[in-house]
């Protein structure tokens, strides 16, 4: 029956021919190649939980009177968006779990994108021919941050409302066009005519996710086209791909990893509270809570705003406000340099050849040191977004903490660069670095002398020598007919195009 159905479809769609090619794809196996998958699976969780949330969320800035489960807000005038989010948390079965999973998942999504980018950067996976994919990846990260901010803003609670207020000022600070842009986006002077909630909503649930989805397709498509990069060793060379075939090895492994990622998100959503908006209350433009920070992925921007000294640029007839420099100029430079990095590096190293074998970070001291220094700079800015929290917990003056961060964001990168550089130099010259340690037994002789004898790790241990074999043609229809996979576990290779 299934056999007949398959043949019917196969005769019309020719799945087995193109499918065979896909199933034969080889994926190099390394734990760091799975970081991007965390982002991919978090995105799936985001879509699934997000759809659930849209069923109950009311994207409207309209004033309504809150009547509901949470008594401390009973009878207050709140926006429909806020009311529906509180109702979603208390009155919808499983609603709070979905909200929390959605939010934790967003944190994991952007977090894993950042870690994935670090992996790509430090191993040099962005080099030719993958520069375009690096561009797409960077764009995906920016879109992730933007969408995180939009989603965080739409419940219209006191804390996120303060964030929107800051975003309004940042937009306003752009020279010449800022005030027009801000008025256009908010439908008037802040807080506008209430249309910011539906506008952010449609950007959050439709426009940005659609672009992300499209770019994600291109990202993975290019990955297929280029075939995955790989670390040297086990017969991996520039002209081949060594690893496990998509079916069944890689597919089952990544499927398990999907479940693990979802499990982590679900556990966090079930047991750790995130963004308890009912405790924050509705956003009222003339109310403000102290100790308000954005989500961590915007933290470096908030930190930059705090650390920036109160300088303004007075041009004839126009003043460029203070906010412009840390909140518009700095991220602008950051993202542009990030995107241009493959070309910047090629320019300096003069290396324009294709690379499919990855670098060990220690073998590229300059790149690694630059990356570490820049990363430390943003890490300090991230820390600076919590100046008040640190001052409170450490009982230090807030002014001292702020001054300390002003110094640190200059000093730390300057220290991190040489330290990283010299550690890399040392590591890259160490013999046996990057190779598994061999097992030795130290024997003391009767005379008191010591000698080292290589040994096996355990009885019957044999050092695995992996010689990649070429993949045989897999016949999809035979697998579907119940035949055993023709590719037993092991290491395989296919040539690159």
């Amino acid at each position, binding site marked *: 029956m299934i056999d007949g159905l398959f043949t019917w479809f196969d005769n019309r769609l020719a799945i087995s021919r193109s499918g065979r090619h896909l199933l034969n794809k080889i994926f190099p196996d390394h734990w760091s190649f799975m970081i991007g998958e965390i982002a991919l699976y978090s995105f799936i969780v985001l879509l699934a939980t997000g759809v659930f949330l849209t069923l109950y969320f009311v994207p409207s800035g309209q004033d309504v009177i809150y009547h509901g489960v949470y008594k401390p807000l009973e009878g207050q005038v709140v926006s429909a968006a806020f009311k529906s989010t509180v109702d979603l948390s208390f009155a919808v079965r499983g609603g709070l779990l979905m909200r929390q999973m959605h939010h934790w998942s967003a944190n994991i999504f952007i977090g894993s994108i950042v870690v994935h980018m670090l992996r790509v950067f430090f191993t040099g996976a962005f080099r030719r021919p993958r520069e375009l994919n690096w561009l797409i990846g960077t764009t995906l990260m920016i879109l992730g941050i933007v969408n995180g901010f939009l989603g965080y803003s739409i419940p219209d609670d006191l804390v996120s409302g303060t964030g929107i207020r800051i975003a309004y000022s940042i937009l306003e600070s752009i020279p010449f066009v800022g005030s027009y842009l801000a008025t256009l986006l908010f439908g008037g002077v802040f807080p506008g005519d209430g249309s910011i909630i539906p506008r952010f909503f449609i950007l959050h649930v439709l426009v940005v996710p659609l672009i992300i989805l499209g770019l994600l397709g291109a990202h993975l498509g290019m990955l297929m086209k280029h075939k995955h990069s790989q670390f040297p060793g086990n017969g991996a060379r520039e002209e081949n791909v060594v690893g496990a075939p998509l079916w069944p090895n890689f597919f089952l492994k990544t499927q398990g990893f999907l479940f693990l990622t979802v499990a982590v998100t679900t556990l966090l959503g079930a047991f750790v509270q995130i963004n*308890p908006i009912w*405790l924050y209350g509705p956003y009222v433009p003339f109310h403000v809570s102290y100790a308000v920070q954005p989500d961590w992925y915007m933290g470096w921007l908030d930190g930059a705003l705090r650390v920036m000294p109160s300088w303004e640029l007075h041009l004839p007839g126009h003043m460029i406000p203070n906010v412009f420099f840390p909140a518009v100029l700095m991220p602008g430079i950051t993202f542009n340099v990030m995107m241009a990095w493959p070309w910047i590096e090629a320019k300096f190293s003069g290396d324009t050849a294709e690379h499919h074998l990855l670098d*060990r970070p220690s073998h590229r001291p300059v790149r690694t040191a630059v990356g570490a220094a820049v990363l430390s700079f943003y890490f300090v800015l991230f820390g600076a977004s919590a100046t008040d929290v640190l001052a409170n917990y450490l009982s230090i003056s807030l002014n001292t903490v702020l001054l300390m961060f002003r110094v640190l964001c200059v000093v730390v990168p300057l220290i991190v660069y040489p330290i990283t550089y010299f550690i890399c130099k040392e590591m890259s*010259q160490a013999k046996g670095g*990057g190779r598994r340690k061999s097992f030795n037994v130290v024997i003391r002789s009767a005379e008191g002398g010591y000698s080292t004898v290589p040994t096996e790790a355990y009885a019957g241990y044999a050092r695995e020598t992996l010689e990649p074999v070429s993949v045989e043609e897999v016949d999809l229809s035979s697998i579907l007919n119940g035949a055993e996979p023709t590719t037993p576990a092991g290491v395989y290779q296919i040539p690159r195009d």
Partner: protein
Amino acid sequence: MRGVILKKLSLFIASLLAGTFGIAAFAGASTTTHHAVAAHVTKHSSTLSPQLQLGQTLFDENCSSCHGIDAQGSMLAPKLQGRGAATIDLWVSSGWMPLAVPTDQPRRGVDKFTRVQTTAIADYVASIKAGGFAIPSGSIAGANVSQGQELFSENCAGCHTITGAGDALSGDLNAPSLHGLTTTQITEAIETAPGNMPHFYPGALTATQVKDVVAYVANDIAHPNNSGGIGLGGNGPVAEGFVGLFLGVGACLLFALWVGDRSEDDEEHETEAVKEAHV
């Protein structure tokens, strides 16, 4: 008479020494006043009720060395006359007072006295000179918590944060956490505005509004509705970010390390890389 002269003399010495040698003078001043305390107590105690007598004894033993025998203040500490029982009760019951060292920053702690003793001290100080607020009952019967939430958001969250976790303000100042306070203490704080806290009552808030805020702080700030799991101390996105990155992404990375393989250089490539690194 001798007591008064001694007291004046001791204060004079204390001020002189404090002015000249700063804190070092404090030890000297306190030993001098010690004799004055004994004389003072024997003179007036017969005219006071037992409650005030207890208060006076405790005040003389614990407070007078800095605030003065009749709470008239000194170089070291402010005048307490006319401050009212509510102020004294708040500062003592919150553990701010008495200070071990007069130059220390007052820190929240446990009340060093029993409730009866604290009230006695407060009543004694209030009996020296009228003024200020009496110790409030702290009753929140019939309070409107929702109204309280709104007023809290408008008037208190700006320093104490919306979750009442407290935070550092500019300079060395800080807005303390609002957790673990009694309704009496919260009412006293709003009424008497301790330290740098702005005055809200009477004026900005009515008595009913104070009660609403107190009810919200005592119920919903002290015992927040932590639906959805561990509350992370009301510290918002900073704490959430750490959990998201270290627990969330961290756990996924550990799983990746578990599921995925590790790389291994071969001899040939390694030597090549080492050669490159030497260049």
